[in-house]
């Protein structure tokens, strides 16, 4: 997920991205941003945040832990806002979605 400084809520999105660096996939030991699991973060005024994200595999055994992690991290960074998780498998996650840092952490 790339945040452009000219887009609305750019500062909030960067803050959200920073928070999500703390959410680690328990199996791969890589955070959800560098894994490329976060597709979009949308801010709706002052009230809610909608995260569109995926998992590395449908019915991933760690799926609930990862989505809970995303919700918890954003609740701490943005107290009082409602966090919505929009889970999607379109497009399906693939290796190309890893960031350079993610690749380095996986030893690619």
């Amino acid at each position, binding site marked *: 997920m790339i945040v452009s400084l000219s887009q609305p809520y750019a500062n909030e999105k960067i803050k959200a991205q920073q928070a999500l660096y703390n959410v680690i996939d*328990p199996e791969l030991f890589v955070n959800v941003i560098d894994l490329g699991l976060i597709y979009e973060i949308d801010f709706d005024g002052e009230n809610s945040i909608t995260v569109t994200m995926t998992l590395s595999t449908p019915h991933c055994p760690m799926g609930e832990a990862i989505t809970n*992690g995303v919700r918890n991290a954003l609740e701490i960074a943005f107290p009082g806002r409602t966090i919505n998780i929009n889970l999607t498998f379109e497009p399906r996650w693939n290796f190309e979605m890893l960031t350079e840092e993610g690749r380095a952490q996986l030893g*690619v």
Partner: protein
Amino acid sequence: MSNINIGNAPPDKVVLPFYATGAFVFWLLCLLLMADPGSLTQHHFNPHLLAIVHMAALGWGTMIIMGAAHQLLPVICERDLFNPVLASVSWYFLTAGIIFLAYAFWNMQTGWLMISGGVLVVLSALAYFINTAFTGSVFIHYSVVRLFIFSSAFWLLFTTLIGLLLAINLRYVFFTKNHLELLKLHAHAGLAGWFLQLIAGVSSKLVPMFLLGKSDKEKLLLYAFILQNAGLLLFLFDGYFFEMPALRMLVYAVLVAAGITCWLLYLYDAFRNRVRKKADIQMKQTFLSFLGIVIAILLVPFVLYANDSRWGIGYGAFLFMGWITGLILGKTFKTLPFIVWNRHYKNLSGKAKIPLPKNLYSEALVQWQFRIFIAAMVLLAAGILMNNTIIVQVASVFWLLLATIYLFNVMKVLLHKKTLLS
């Protein structure tokens, strides 16, 4: 959250008893092996070896694999487990059944005790079959993996039914065919039907998942499925209805071996195209276990043509202790810590500093487990093939040490208390 179901794993109280029981039975069977190493250098139809083999096949191999399968069915079928209560029923029946059977075989008490054990194991297999069939009945995405899972559940039920009939036949003879010939069919329905097909199916999903690998050669898996089942069906049909000569047995073994080769080629392709280059110790142990099945297949001509039961026992040892045990030792710490971690920490992720699943067990002990496994397997094979009871005795000490380390590490995970890191 959107309405996509990300798959609720069955409650951990359903799955964890399988792991605890399996680890304990493995330790116990290694203890019995040490108590009577001579059972491995006699003819294979002896009470103590029958008890040990049934403990290995049902109390250890089936127990752990069935537990893991209940956890993984939602991942493979992309929907929730049909009925977690049935999964618990499977565990109760299997545990009771193996206690009855192990005692009855060790003391060669044919009759109600052995037959009751057989009935309990059949009921366990039936409960598992129902759960598998209904969990996989809705095809969201077609996959050969799902075919493997379904066929293996069928073969488990079939194997246990034949086993029950054999237990009855030991007391009230009704088969006209030689009991030892039927025992061969029963054993291979379990090995090539239940164990091989479940392991082929699950590993074809999990190995690429763990390695972040992929293969577009799914056709290989389809060939594997067809060849393994064709070889097994022909073997069972010929063996039951005709006098099967060694040459025809060899042909059926070649068919199954070709199926195994297709499956291993698929895994190799996923391994070659993996993102995660560094394989951890659990994956190394998994790959090593495949050597066990390859060596067992290479021994088949000796089993068929050399009139000496040590080749048959060696063949069985490579399958049960080399392949199935090796695989379980590797895969346990790829599944169990995650199940327990989920129970304690899935709601705390992103909120507090928490341990990772790998912190729930001792990685150093897993390293030792790997080394001792190699030594134990080499010594066991040497002892059996040289027909030397002393070497088997030394090997059994290594196996007991291995089982003790494994049991300790499994219990460390199971008894983990929630901890927040500072």
